[in-house]
């Protein structure tokens, strides 16, 4: 049973699994063009696009790049309803960062509209700069979201090992994703169990904080227990970080789609970076 618009198989488990919660950095098993491209290609594209977003400060590059990434997300067939929360959270964070930039930057210009007591100011160039800053960071965030939504963590492992990254590094990255998913599942199971006891998040700020504190303590103790048990499970299946050779279930396969994506992205990236720094 796969989900057509959101996370896979979020059918509640007997012990109180949550529905519809794994929506950040987690694989969404939707049939999409991204499935035809191998994970290493996607990883390279993500790294290149992120590099361009950070390295190049030009609206004629950054805005089309953001549009292309948004189109890419749309083409993946993932329902915006599913991504809405993630995109809103990311936008919110970026907005806060942007506002901080507004208050604490000093972009030279001909006119200073506002001068802050601490010495920074807002000039006629500040707003365009900040808007561009927002666009660049949003581009980098969305392209990474696109990657994680369309790539299993085991595929990421395959890609990283193909480029001969040490197994310990590959394991840390992929296991971090697994642990995040497990922790989120555990969190929602705990919230559900506590709702079944009448806990809600109404009341004063201190009431809410007190309730949140209870949940976090429960979460912490549950996490320690799960990590301890998970370590036994991993060891019982032969995991030794610095041991000998390993094989992989999934093979990295190259196809014409990889070439069709990599060649133009690589060429364009090189050209833009050369133009910027050459």
């Amino acid at each position: 049973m796969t989900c057509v618009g959101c996370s896979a198989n979020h059918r509640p488990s007997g012990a109180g699994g949550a529905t519809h919660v794994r929506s950040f950095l987690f694989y969404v098993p939707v049939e999409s063009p991204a499935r035809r491209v191998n994970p290493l290609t996607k990883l390279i594209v993500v790294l290149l696009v992120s590099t361009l977003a950070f390295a190049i400060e030009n609206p004629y590059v950054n805005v089309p790049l953001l549009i292309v990434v948004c189109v890419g997300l749309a083409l993946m067939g993932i329902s915006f309803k599913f991504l809405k929360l993630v995109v809103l959270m990311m936008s919110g964070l970026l907005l806060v960062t942007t506002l901080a930039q507004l208050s604490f930057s000093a972009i030279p210009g001909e006119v200073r509209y506002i001068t802050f007591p601490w010495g920074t100011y807002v000039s006629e160039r500040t707003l365009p700069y900040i808007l561009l800053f927002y666009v660049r960071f949003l581009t980098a965030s969305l392209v990474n979201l696109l990657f994680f939504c369309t790539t299993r963590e085991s595929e990421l492992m395959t890609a990283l090992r193909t480029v001969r990254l040490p197994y310990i590094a590959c394991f840390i990255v992929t296991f971090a994703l697994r642990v995040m998913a497990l922790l989120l599942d555990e969190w929602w199971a705990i919230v559900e169990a506590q709702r079944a006891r009448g806990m809600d998040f109404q009341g004063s700020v201190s009431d809410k904080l007190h309730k949140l504190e209870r949940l976090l303590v429960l979460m912490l103790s549950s996490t320690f227990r799960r990590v301890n048990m998970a370590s036994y499970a991993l060891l019982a299946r032969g995991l030794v970080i610095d041991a000998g050779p390993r094989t992989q279930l999934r093979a990295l396969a190259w196809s014409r789609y990889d070439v069709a994506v990599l060649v133009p992205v690589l060429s364009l990236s090189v050209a833009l970076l050369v133009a910027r720094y050459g």
Partner: protein
Amino acid sequence: MQPKIDVEGVWWRYAEAEAWALRDLSLQIAPGDAVGIVGQAGAGKTTLCLALAGLIPQETEGEWRGRVQVCGLDTSTTPVRQLVQRVGLLLQNAECYLVGMSVLDELAFGLENLACPRDEMWRRIRWALDIVGLAGFEEKYPQALSGGQKQRVSLAAVLTLQPEVLVLDSPFANVDGAGRTEVSAAIRDLRGRLGTTMVIVEHSTEDLAPLVDRMILLDQGRLPHQAAPRRFFQSVELLTRNSVCVPQVTELGYCLSSGRCVKGELPISVETAERWVRERVDGCEPSSLTADAGWIDAKPTAPASFAPVICAQGLRYVYPDGTVGLEHVDLEIHPGDYVALVGPNGSGKTTLAKHFIGLIKPTDGCVRVKGRDTRTTPIKELVAQVGYVFQNPDRQLCTETVEEEIAFGLQNQGLPSGEIAERVERTLAQLGWARLQKDRICTLGLAERQCVAIASLLVTEPALLILDEPTCWLDGGQSRALMQLLDQVNERGKTIILITHNTRLVADHASRVVGLMEGRVMLDAPTRVALGCAAALNELLLSPPQVTRLAQRLAPLGFPPDLLTMNEMVKYIDGRVGSRGRSVV
């Protein structure tokens, strides 16, 4: 012949623990043998399993003495990675051990670590999934599966390694009837084809006994009793003292034999019980006791004229991905009902139960709890009427002491502190737990934590209590105590819904059975009718209790085929044998 497993004089104490978990334990298991281990909670069963796989002492802090050799390798010095190629370990409570993002990844993980070639990996994965009945589940997220399915995924992950020795801790826990049959078949298959040596820890002796050559009792880290199953279960008193739930037919034989100078072995299976009972009733007339006068343990059912506590009409639930979870469920549960909600793994039992507390809202139709529509009533108001005990009590226990925990639900309802204190004290007194009032939750065992979770809901005086597999991790003694508590609660007029796979529990306690299959109610009948309906039970992948199966096999001798409990069988046989005089038995 050198033993496959050789445990010699092993002592083990966990770091910061005062008591030894294993005490001078010695044990030998020959190649190809299967050994079952039973004992009460805390006896050292899981500790022994970890020691056989080398995780104790290599990966666990503590004090170790003695020697364990598996396949000729010393488990305290041989690297664990080398050991796991010989010893496969399935730990209990599968949910906590699943770390993959798909079933496929979960099963492939061990094989990748051991550098298994890709083609061989795919072959073993398909084989393992076939054996546990989860073919087609490759891409599913393990954490979203039902409890029994998770257990099967964990077992499949171990099976893919095809070890020479398999150590299984509670492989049948939480698994439905079909799953148990598949797991049993897999165990037999592995022994038959590959000669795998097995060590199986399990509370369900009825599932365990037919699979093993020898049974072992652990008691506080020691090994006081071991024998072939036929001889092992003759020591009923010893086993009962150690909270081991002996097979029901063995218990039946023991009850019939007590004080009557009966010679001969007690039966341990339905087949041997049939012969045993035939020998004893041979020549007796069918009992003069009628059902009304004699052997039936009546379980009162609530009059249907009372307004229902739960009323589901045309209930339909569709998961956000479009999968239908429940279809056209019409159900009424009346005050005082004791309902067993049964069905295979993934049939919708928990989904249905969560509708009753408002954690899930219907897609179509409606659910009313004491007349209040769950779609429009806040959960906080519903929980005043419905108490839900999850399978894992630790997610519900969020305070430090027993007293605070029991008061927690009342605080959420906004009751005054004086009334809260009074109700907490009353509940503790009623349950006989006044001495535990100030105990810290973290010092309690799983069964005690389960009981605290139940008490914290009972104190809110809900009309309905829902328990999701409350006994699946408990030993025999703990299960009995918990079920007695629930019986008392039901006798005081509370409605109970018990989600379980254990038909013996259903027969002993429930007055009504509701069976779900693929989201539909396909059985709703009094317990006696439900457990006597072979066709329905087959559809639900359930098997009646041993006593009922025995009665059905003895039907040609005039035995009523709907005998449900051991008590009823004893009364019937007593009445029958009594017709030609007790001294005959």
